[in-house]
């Protein structure tokens, strides 16, 4: 399964990375070289364990199966102290303006 230039462009788009065109050849070669070492896994018989895969469960605790208080049952002033016109007022999350960090 060789990685192509289109694959790298597609994956870069998915990962929100801007890959310069002059780096593309190098990245394609590198990924193909790395992935060639992974091919050995296809020869391993894993039928026995495929239903139990995941992180090692012996060291991963489970939460207790109990419900706690619903977070929205707290007074709204605790989590949204500022209201205007029956709407919650929140800080602006992102903007390209220099004043983006200021609350509205």
């Amino acid at each position, binding site marked *: *399964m060789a*990685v192509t230039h289109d*694959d*790298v462009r*597609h*994956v*870069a788009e*998915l*990962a*929100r*990375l*801007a*890959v310069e065109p002059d780096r593309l050849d190098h*990245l394609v070669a*590198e*990924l193909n*070289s*790395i*992935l060639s*070492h*992974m091919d*050995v*896994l*296809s020869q*391993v018989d*894993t039928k026995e*364990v*495929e239903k*139990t*895969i*995941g*992180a*090692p469960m*012996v*060291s*991963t*605790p489970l*939460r207790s199966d109990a419900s706690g208080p619903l977070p929205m049952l707290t007074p709204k002033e605790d989590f949204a102290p500022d209201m205007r016109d029956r709407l919650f007022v929140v800080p602006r*999350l*992102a903007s*390209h303006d220099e004043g983006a960090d200021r609350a509205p």
Partner: protein
Amino acid sequence: MNTVDFGTLSAGAVAARVAGGEMSPAAAVEGSFAMAAAAGAGRDGLNLILWSDRELALRDAAGLAEGMTRAGTGGRLAGVPIAVKDNISTLGLPTTCGSKILAGYVSPYEATAITRLRQEGAIVIAKTNMDEFAMGSSNENSPYGPARNPHDVRRVTGGSSGGSAASVACGIVPISLGSETGGSVRQPAAFCGVVGVKPTYGRVSRYGLVAFASSLDQIGVMARTVDDAALATEIIAGVDPRDSTSSSVEVGSYRDQFVSPATSPAPLAGLKIGVPKEYFPENLDSGIRAHCERAVDALKSLGATVVDVTLPHSPLAIPVYYIIAPAEASSNLARFDGVRYGHRNRDATILREMFATTRSEGFGPEVTRRILLGTYVLSAGYYDAYYKKAQAVRALITRDFNTVFKNGIDALFTPTTPTTAFAIGAVTDPYEMYLSDIFTVTANLAGVPAMSLPIGRVAGLPVGGQVIANHFNEAMMFRVAYALEAALGREAHQ
């Protein structure tokens, strides 16, 4: 006390002197900074430390002194200076993960491991150099330049916790914190001649550790002695409500089980130690092999029964790891998009462009490579062939360890690394670099505890031996390592 003497003190010795009034917490902080200056730990020298603040550390020391006067005790690490890898959140110092994308980021909260060490009197004096986002095995993937090995400045410290390992090796601090995903504590510990511990997955809270690969990440301890490493691990271990993957299995006292060869002729009598043949390949460095054989002889002389065992799927660990870890990283690092943290490209005109340019400017080549690799193995059409298959082989690797321990083996002994520290710039092929972790990565995949301790030197460079135990049996791991360290004595550094 002169600077050199301070650099030889164990954490226990510093705490005892501070508790006894022979040394003030401020003097311990000053001793640490003097050692850093003497070693040339700054950017223009060994390049071990990214961020430090003497005034902040002295203020913490003054607060500790005041608390000791009030309470009459300073804790088990009273006044002990510690260094912390730059991907573990601390208050007052930057937490940048050695990445330009987090330049200037100061965490508003601290990691649980740091809180627990500070509650016992430890004082954070520095954030240490590391491979960007803990992705690397040499510390060369730091945008601030590689940390240099104090045993030979032309060589790497190992990575990714290179600055933390070398800070302990130089005597700047008796204890440091690193993080492990595939060997990032044990491998640099071996290269720098110190003790490095990766606890069981879930043993230490990951709250405040910036995520790389969440099914593998663990905070680990580096120290000059097994005793100090056990003490610090004991302190940071245990369930934390802020990390739902932390375990409530009781921690206990690791050091209570230490038996020295000085007081008992056979402190490991009755224990069965396995030597897995897959960790001694034909092409293993002959010097490392010789030191491992000497360590195995020492284990026998301590009363342990040493038997050959097999972990047949271990040779597949590197391909498995380099699918699973980049896959998880590609998801975890999605949060660094210029909106909430650190660097933001301000020239982009639309949001999508801002995400892409910010990330490409902020991430270095190895992080970019792993995000692309991880995204690829998770993408439609390749998920089953790569990611799902790697998860299945991971289950086989884990089963190998479970089988060995179920069959009565108490601990395993292996070399920590296939080579000693290599020259800076010598390894340029990414996959060849990944092979540095070949003996350490299996413990991360299986979730078992493992540690490296010095067992000798080849051409003046330290060699590490690895002790691996069953899940949550850190006590056994430390017991074996403590006896081995005592039996090797000065030979561990020759």
